[in-house]
């Protein structure tokens, strides 16, 4: 005899999908809640980004329409105008620092030198390294040419008017703040964002590589990103 279905609403069969759905919703809520400016257009894109994110060791992947590098007119190491076209048509890693930085900046550039060598050895999509100074008053084109060129002649150095540099950093969410030196005002320090930004050939900011920067981790994360987004 078939009795009518008298199971309670929270039957075993419906509990698991409910939990999974709630967890996914919570995760999505946390993911989007982390940055209210973010605007992943579809749930499918959000899900595939989450799957990609799960594979990355020390990097945050960003939706394609999150942020683009704006047009800019700055100065290259030869003293001539450098604009946003330097980013177009290839992948670039942008790092922001200054030469009066004894520890973090030279080490990061050395790491990137080794990253590029590693990528070239493995025939992975070439990566252009761009070092933009957050201290253009002291870091002239001449100084940057020596500094950046020491690591790799192909590395791009960017300086320019302080207002133009600040406009760029502000639009990219990069922080740079000056700390006065009471003993010697000329020897001020600059706090600056430690992460590096991965820019795609269309000038979109696709990922943020967190510090501390290690060759192996950067190479692995870059490879995963290129495979998925390249």
């Amino acid at each position, binding site marked *: 005899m078939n009795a009518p279905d008298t199971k309670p609403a929270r039957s075993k069969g419906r509990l698991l999908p409910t939990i999974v759905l709630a967890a996914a919703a919570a995760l999505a809520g946390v993911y989007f809640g982390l940055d209210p400016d973010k605007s992943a257009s579809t749930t499918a894109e959000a899900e595939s980004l989450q799957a990609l994110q799960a594979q990355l060791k020390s990097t945050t992947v960003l939706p394609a329409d999150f942020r683009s590098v704006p047009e800019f007119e700055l100065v290259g190491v030869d003293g001539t105008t450098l604009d946003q076209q330097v980013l177009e048509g290839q992948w670039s890693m942008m790092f922001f*620092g200054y*030469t*009066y*930085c*004894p*520890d*973090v900046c*030279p*080490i990061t*550039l*050395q*790491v990137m*030198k*080794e990253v590029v060598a590693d990528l070239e050895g493995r025939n992975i999509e070439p990566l252009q390294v761009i070092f933009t100074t957050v201290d253009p008053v*002291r870091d002239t084109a*001449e*100084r*940057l*040419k*020596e*500094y*950046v060129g*020491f*690591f790799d002649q192909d590395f791009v150095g960017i300086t320019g008017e302080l207002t133009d540099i600040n406009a760029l950093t502000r639009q990219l969410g990069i*922080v740079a*703040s000056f*700390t*006065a*030196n*009471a*003993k010697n005002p000329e*020897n001020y*320090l600059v*706090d*600056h*964002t*430690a*992460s590096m930004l991965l820019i795609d050939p269309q000038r979109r900011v696709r990922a943020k590589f*967190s*510090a*501390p*920067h*290690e*060759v192996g981790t950067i190479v692995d994360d870059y490879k995963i990103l290129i495979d998925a987004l390249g």
Partner: protein
Amino acid sequence: MKSILLPLALLFASAAHAELPQISDAFINQPPPGAPVAAGYFTINNTASEALIITGASTDQGGEIEVHLSEIIDDVATMSEQESITIEPGEQLEFRHGSYHLMLMGMSDILKPGSEVAVSLETNQGEVQFNMPVMAPGSSHDGMKNMKESMDDAGTAMEGMKHEGDAAAQ
């Protein structure tokens, strides 16, 4: 009288020597041309039964040295000059990438691989003198890997010592 002096001298000498802070793995990372500052790293071991307080550093070879701490806070790389660093008895402290380091100012033109800088640390246990050879970047790979470790265990490193007085004015 003479027969007592020598044993006494040796006694004092050995006692003093046993308590001297020990320095190891000292080196300066060759700065790129155009860089007005360079970073020096080393490990210091406080073998005495009292705290070791480092209050400064200097060199006779031109230029100045400041003691700094690198930190990354909320994704911002920052450095602050340290007025004093205290290392408890029996503890050691690593000056390394991403952590405590010496900032050498105005000496970049003499900092080439193969050269050495004689450095003097000012401490409560006296001047601690040691040589720091200049190494080309990348030649000290331990330093590179250690940056992550120093970031990770910056918290535990603090347990063995305390530091005070950020000299940088706001």
